């Protein structure tokens, strides 16, 4: 098998924001890549920088308060941070596409959904009005909206939450992107509808060979669809690797803590092992390793030296001075020594 080509590479990205309490770094050296056709899940808790990362890729950061301080974002060989926003937007509307968590605010409430999709074909591909509409209907049909020709005339509020998320997906896929970024696409949906949407994304991705970045805090959703995982904490990627390697043998204490926090199906009622303390405020990121105040493995050098990501197994990287120890001490299966 030929080595997969990276489609998107983010390297040492630093983004700072001007907030009411001062300037802070939302991203503090984020690095990861996505290969052609693969699904990368970015996993992390609120405030870890997941959404800021993908908004930086899509050139959607607020212009006045956010700054890309350093780092590179390369898409198919092109350096996005060096391009004018206009060109990034053009790229990001044809080759990169994004699905947001809240489908209600992602759609214009006073324009028929068919028209919102048709507009993309007219503006970006200069197709005729009639052809654009036809393609919009076909797009709605493809994402499983029953009676698409008639529903294209409806407004967003006339759709249920799940159907509206399908409309948003149809819009994202309209121009045949090579990379789809889905930011918590099912968080606002019920479990049974979530299953429908995740199945749909999986099917569409397989049919088109499209790559996907899935942002979520739900470890179960990740396990369902991802090929690889990147775990974020306090504005950095602390661990990346193949799904099962990261889940079964986490090499970063934060990942290990996350895995131990979730209730195990086979041991109902057993005491959970939470991560002590809480995530740091971005205004006061701890020195050295940002996780050290909550880390059971922390030693003196963790307070002073920030660990760089390093390879711990093929394709598996972790930013921890004691990754080997973490990997050896972990048994997420529950047979952990008492």
């Amino acid at each position, binding site marked *: 098998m030929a080595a997969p080509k990276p489609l998107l590479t983010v390297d040492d990205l630093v983004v700072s924001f001007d907030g009411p309490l001062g300037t802070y770094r939302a991203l503090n050296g984020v690095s990861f890549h996505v290969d052609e056709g693969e699904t990368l899940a970015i996993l992390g808790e609120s405030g870890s920088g997941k959404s800021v990362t993908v908004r930086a890729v899509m050139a959607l950061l607020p212009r006045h308060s956010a700054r890309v301080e350093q780092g590179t974002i390369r898409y198919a060989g092109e350096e996005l941070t060096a391009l004018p926003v206009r060109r990034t937007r053009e790229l990001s509307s044809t080759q990169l596409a994004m699905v947001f968590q809240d489908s209600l605010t992602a759609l214009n409430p006073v324009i028929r959904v068919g028209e919102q999709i048709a507009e993309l074909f007219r503006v970006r591909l200069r197709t005729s009005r009639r052809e654009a509409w036809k393609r919009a209907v076909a797009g709605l049909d493809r994402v499983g909206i029953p009676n698409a020709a008639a529903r294209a005339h409806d407004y967003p509020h006339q759709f249920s939450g799940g159907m509206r998320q399908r409309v948003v997906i149809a819009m994202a896929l309209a121009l045949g992107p090579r990379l789809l970024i889905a930011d918590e696409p099912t968080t606002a949906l*019920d*479990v*049974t509808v979530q*299953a429908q949407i995740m199945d749909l994304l999986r099917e569409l991705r397989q049919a088109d060979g499209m790559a996907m970045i899935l942002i979520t805090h739900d*470890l179960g959703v990740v396990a369902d669809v991802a090929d690889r995982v990147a775990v974020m904490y306090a504005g950095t990627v602390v661990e990346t690797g193949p799904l099962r390697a990261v889940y079964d043998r986490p090499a970063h204490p934060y990942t290990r803590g996350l895995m131990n*926090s979730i209730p195990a199906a086979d041991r109902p*009622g057993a005491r959970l092992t939470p991560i002590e303390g*809480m995530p740091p405020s971005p205004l006061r990121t701890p020195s050295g390793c940002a996780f050290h105040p909550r880390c059971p493995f922390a030693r003196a050098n963790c307070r002073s030296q920030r660990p760089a990501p390093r390879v711990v197994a093929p394709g598996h990287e972790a930013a921890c001075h004691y990754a080997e120890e973490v990997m050896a001490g972990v048994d997420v299966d529950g047979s952990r020594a008492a």
Partner: protein
Amino acid sequence: MSTSTAVARLEVRALRVTYPARGGLLRGAADISAVDRLSLTVTAGRTLGLVGESGCGKSTLARTIVGLRRPAGGEIWYGGERVDDADAARRRRLTAEIQMVYQDPYSSLNPRKKVAFIVSEGWRVHRGLVPREQWPARTAELLERVGLAAELADRYPHQLSGGQRQRVGIARALAMSPRIVVCDEPVSALDVSIQAQTLNLLADLRESLGLGYLFIAHDLSVVRHISDDLAVMYLGRIVETGPAAVVYDEPAHPYTRALISAAPVPRPWAAPPRERIVLTGEVPSPASPPSGCRFRTRCRLAQPRCAETEPELRMVAGREVACHYAETSLSGAVSSGTGGPR
């Protein structure tokens, strides 16, 4: 406390809660039933988990139990007394022992009051429960009990994290020395690591204070973790209820089966292979529930009979289930193309 000698029990019998249907095409239409002929029992020291999707009536049920809504029918009993038709004074006494923890730790705390005020507010209403000179000491004790430093009594909610706020919400409920606590999605707004801390705290409090929980959530792994018994709601009715291990591990109602199969498992490769049922469509509007069985429009076992007669809860293999074809469903003998292991 009046009921502390016997095991405290909260009983909901054939409860019906309605919303007026108003405006537009629905003007003059019958009221919408959010909760319909629903019965359940919460016992001190045990946890009844209640699951269901948005709009199924879980939160309406919770709010009715703690007295924030009036039922349109049915009865609520606590400690041998009927609560829902009690006069104000008696009701006040009874409801002190039934407290609620809310989902959203942001909107459920008054942003203009300090933590000390929020925790002690119930004592202002229920005079005589705790003498005023003991308030500061009791507040400190309660904060410590929920794992917060006593200094936080002087803070405002916006100075706290989500997890800390939820602890304040729990301390406020505990201030009334309740026997029964209704927890409406208490951890769903919290991050995974904070969620685990909160679940451990709730389990500890149940143990040390002998509390009974009605634990409402949509996250099945969380509900399974904390519950002794489970009840599954669909469009205002309970479709299946029984011991958590029975209902979760061998669900009999087609809806329960679908709900459990749809919930993503963190490490699917380590779990036993599961059937995968993806329901079509979404929950119908409670304003016009389907005739007969309310689930039949999305059910792969539905027969003509399901449209005609609404199934009542009946005992099947160790749990109560409201389905004409529960035995068929339980045996898994389903030839529909949507099922089967992945």
